[in-house]
Each structure stands twice: as C-alpha cells, then as structure tokens.
C-alpha cells in the first residue's frame, strides 16, 4: 500500500448530512444506527407492554378489546425480540468486534449497510398491520397454525417482515463469522479473543443454522394460506404439530441467540470492575459452545403438553436439565472472578451483577419448567411469562444496558453521570422485580397467559405487576437523559482512552472517542491487552 494511499485514508472522515447514514459502510456508523434502531423499537415495544399491563391492572375488560390485546402481546414479542434485543446485540457487535480483534472494519461493509437498512422496512411493514382490516397479527409470536391462518390482511405482511428480519440477521451473522475467522490481528489466536467476540462467533453460527428454519416454516404457512398446500393443515393431510416442532427447532436456539452475547458482555465487565482476570477463560468458551450444541436438542420442552411418546418427554426433559451444567459453570466462574477481587460498583458493574443474580433466578424457574410432569401444571401459565421475562429483561436487556454504559464513553469520548446511572440501576432493579416476581405466583395459582381478563383472585398480583411495569418504563428516562445529554450531546466529562482502570483489550488502546477508522494497520498486541488467561500453563506469570 503506498504512502499516498495511507494518508488519503487517514483524512477520510464521514460524509455530511443524512447521506452519511444512508450510504455508510463504516462499522461504527452502522453500530450506532443499529443501537438507535433498537432504542426506538424498545420504546415502541415498551408502549405495547404498558397497554397490556394497563388492561391487566384489574379484572374485566376496560381499555382495549380482546383482539387488540392479542395483537399487542404478539407485536410486543416480535418487536422486542427481532427489533430490540437482536439489533442491539448486532449494534454492539458492529462497534466492538472489529475493534476487539484488531480489524479495520467488518469483512463485508456493503453487506453490513444492506443488512441494517432492511430492518426499518421490515418493521414498518410489521407495524403497518396494526392499521389494516382485521388488525395486526394476534396469534402470538409463535404463530401456531391453524390459529395463525385466521389472521386477516396482516398475514402476508407479517411473513414478509419476518423474512426480511431473517435476511438481515443472516447477513449480519455471516459478516461477524468472516471478520472473526479472517481478520484478526496477528497474534490474536482464537483462544486469546475477548469473550464477547467468542460469544458472538457462536451466536452467529446459531443464527446461520436457525434463521433459515424459521424462514422455511413461515414460507410454508404462507403457501398453506394462499397457494393450497397442506404442510400444516390437517384437512389436507398436514400436521399442525409439525409446525410446533419446526418453530421450536428455530425457537430454542433463538433463546440462546438472545443470551449468549449477554454472557460475553458480563464476562467482559466483571473482570474489569473486580480488577482481576476472568476465572476459567477456557471453560467459559467450552460452556458457551456446549450451550449452543444443547440448544439444538431440547426444542420439544416447549411443547410437553402436545402429546409426545414418554421416551420423547424423558429425552427432552433430561437434555434440557443438562443445560444447567454449562450455565452453572459460567455463573460459578463469574462469582469466582469476583472472589477476593478489588471490586468497585460503577453502573456497568451494577447492571452486570444484577444480571448474574436475576438471570440465574430465571434459569432456576427454567429448570422447574424443564420437569415434564410439573410442566403440565405450569404450561401456558403466567409462570412461563415470569420465567422468560426474568431471562430476557434483567438478563438480555440488562446486559445491553451494562454494555452501553461500559463502552459509550469510548464511543462518544464523554462520560455519563455516575450518580444518575446508579439511580437508574436501582430504580430498574426494583421495578423489574415488582413487575415480574408476582407473575410467578399468579401463574402457579393458575392464571393463563395471553388473556385480557382474569379471575378476581389474581387481582393483587396483577396490580403489583402493572405498577412495576409503569415504574420500570418511567425509570428508563433517567437512562435516556444520561446517555443523550452527557454522552451523545457531549455535556459529560471527557473520557480517557482507557475509560476503566481494570479494562484490558484493543479497544482501550485507541483514543476516546474512537476515531472513524481504527486499526487500518494491524495492531501489535501486547500481553497486557489480552483478556484471556488460560488455566493450564501454571508457569505463566500472574498479571494481578
């Protein structure tokens, strides 16, 4: 590469105006776009959850009609999963994976641009269904036939939106795999990569394997409804239960797509604020790989009550329980990392600790649901709603919030307000437990999920849950203010290159804010920036 070419690249900044964002192929710009998109979707999905909680504040029907209520539960799930959590993690991968492995950008920058700009169209299509005859899709995000085939005009729009989301996810995943496998800086071997990168490599493989399965399943729904096929229509010789098998063959790995990057984030944050290296790096990698493998052989635990042979129930029950082993390894390692560490409790650490406590709680209720005979009682009850919201909100969403508090000073060059951040954490932690803990009791007492009305004996738990939900939503404005005013609008104190004393990794070797182009020349990796410490070679000197 000539000198002239190099200096040309050094001077090359972003375009001005709106075209910068439309045409950008820069991983940092696209990471920012993904994160803003997810932020807006979290807001829209949050409003839908408030409509649900408003209706459930008291028994009887008072605010919305049942069809619209069903539409809200369906759209809330689709938007939060495909529009909120997944794009937020993709945004974090866009920003951090190239910087963490010492690459100048993702491997396929134009594909990256395309992958992002599909999303606004997909969600415009999906949201537009709320204004159509028959309303939005209302059969739940699981789209089980034959119920889903009764959807009105919204049906093809929902299917096409899901196809677009799938294309976006697959292109993003391919980009991440190629970047990690091909573009690591010299010396960055696979087992020296930061765990966030490992978590995304495994997640990307899960996406490539499972999103086409979802796409195939919804295409078959489309042909069943409009082209006379009978894949899932019993009247034509099809099998509706087969849809459930296919959906959950996608759906269970999807659950891990939503949580593995969170594991990577927490494994990055805890060592930083414990001033120690991560305990058991290798076992963390193997645990994530094991969880990913197991995620493909447990799908039917979502459908224990559908009527399976006993051997099937037993297989899926024991396979599901097996997941507790690698997950337990991870929780043990996080706790062992903190053991005798010089811990400090800045906002990212508080959210990471909240994750460890509350995600584990969600894991335990997952184990309860894994017991097939017990699941006959819990199935389709509010206990399930409590379980997966514990895993997804103080799990996945807390990890996203923790990651943004952790890296936002690096991205913008300005610190958030620490006091406000701590207030945000405590308000969120209290509100989230108010919202979801009572749902366990309502569920165990027999309250079914996805209903706009309920028997009066469930009222007290629902009142607490609804109050908690509004409390949680309002608390997020402290976060929005803190991030937007102090970091995005640059009112906060200037951030140093190494924002956190205990942080290691290539991203902390570049200035804050991170320049538009980083690692145009592959960096030389010093030992102190390698976050991995392997267990075996005991002779390796301690850096503590």
């Amino acid at each position: 590469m000539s000198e002239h070419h190099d200096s040309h690249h050094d001077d090359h900044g972003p375009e001005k105006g709106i075209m910068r964002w439309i045409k950008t192929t820069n991983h940092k710009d696209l990471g920012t776009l993904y994160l803003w998109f997810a932020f807006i979707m979290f807001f829209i999905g949050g409003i839908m959850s408030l409509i649900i909680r408003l209706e459930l504040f008291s028994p009887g029907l008072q605010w919305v009609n049942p069809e619209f209520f069903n539409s809200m539960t369906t759209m809330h799930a689709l938007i939060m999963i495909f529009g909120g959590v997944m794009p937020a993690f993709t945004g974090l991968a866009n920003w951090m994976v190239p910087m963490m492995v010492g690459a100048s950008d993702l491997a396929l920058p134009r594909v990256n641009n395309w992958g992002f700009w599909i999303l606004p169209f997909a969600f415009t299509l999906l949201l537009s269904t709320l204004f159509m005859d028959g309303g939005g899709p209302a059969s739940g995000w699981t789209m089980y036939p034959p119920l889903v085939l009764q959807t009105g005009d919204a049906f093809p729009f929902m299917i096409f939106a899901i196809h677009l989301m799938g294309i976006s996810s697959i292109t993003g995943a391919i980009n991440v795999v190629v970047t990690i496998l091909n573009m690591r800086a010299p010396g960055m071997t696979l087992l020296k990569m930061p765990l966030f990168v490992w978590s995304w490599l495994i997640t990307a493989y899960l996406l490539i394997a499972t999103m086409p399965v979802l796409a195939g399943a919804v295409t078959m729904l489309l042909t069943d409804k409009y082209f006379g096929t009978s894949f899932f229509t019993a009247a034509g010789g099809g099998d509706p239960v087969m849809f459930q098998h296919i959906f959950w063959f996608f759906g269970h790995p999807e659950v891990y797509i939503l949580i593995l990057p969170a594991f990577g984030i927490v494994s990055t944050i805890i060592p930083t604020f414990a001033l120690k290296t991560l305990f058991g790096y290798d076992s963390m990698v193997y645990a994530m790989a094991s969880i990913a493998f197991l995620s493909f052989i447990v799908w039917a635990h979502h459908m224990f009550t559908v009527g399976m042979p006993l051997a099937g129930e037993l297989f899926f029950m024991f396979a599901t329980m097996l997941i507790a082993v690698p997950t337990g390894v991870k929780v043990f390692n996080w706790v062992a990392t903190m053991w005798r560490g010089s811990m400090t409790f800045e906002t990212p650490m508080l959210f990471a600790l909240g994750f460890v406590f509350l995600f584990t709680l969600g894991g335990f209720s997952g184990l309860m649901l894994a017991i097939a005979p017990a699941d006959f009682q819990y199935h389709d009850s509010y206990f399930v709603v409590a379980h997966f919201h514990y895993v997804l909100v103080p799990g996945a969403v807390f990890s996203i919030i923790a990651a943004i508090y952790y890296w936002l000073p690096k991205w913008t060059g300005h610190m958030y307000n620490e006091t406000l951040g701590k207030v945000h954490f405590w308000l969120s932690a209290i509100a989230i437990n108010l919202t979801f803990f009572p749902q366990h009791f309502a569920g165990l007492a027999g309250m079914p999920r996805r209903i706009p009305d309920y028997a009066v004996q469930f009222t007290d738990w629902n009142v607490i849950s609804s109050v908690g939900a509004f409390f949680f939503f309002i608390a997020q404005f402290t976060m929005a203010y803190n991030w937007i005013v102090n970091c995005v609008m640059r009112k906060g104190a200037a951030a140093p290159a190494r924002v956190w004393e205990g942080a290691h990794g290539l991203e902390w070797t570049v200035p804050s804010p991170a320049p538009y182009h980083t690692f145009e020349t592959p960096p030389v990796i010093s030992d102190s920036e390698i976050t991995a410490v392997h267990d075996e070679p005991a002779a390796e000197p301690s850096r503590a």
Partner: protein
Amino acid sequence: MSDQEPRNKKRPSNVRLALMLGAVALTFYFAMFVVMSR
C-alpha cells in the same frame, strides 16, 4: 493489506467464506421443503 484478503493465507477469502456460509443457510432453507414434502 487489503480487507478483502484473509490475514491467514490458508483461509478462504472473505467473499468466498461468506458465500459458503450463505450457501449453508440456503441449504437449510430448501432442505425444509424437501423434508416436509416427503
């Protein structure tokens, strides 16, 4: 070094690796119809 070239010469190029992964995804998609049409 161009971003289009793998830093490890033994690996396939970025575009080739991406196409291979894309082919895997498409295979999964179409395999669904083959299996379900039996």
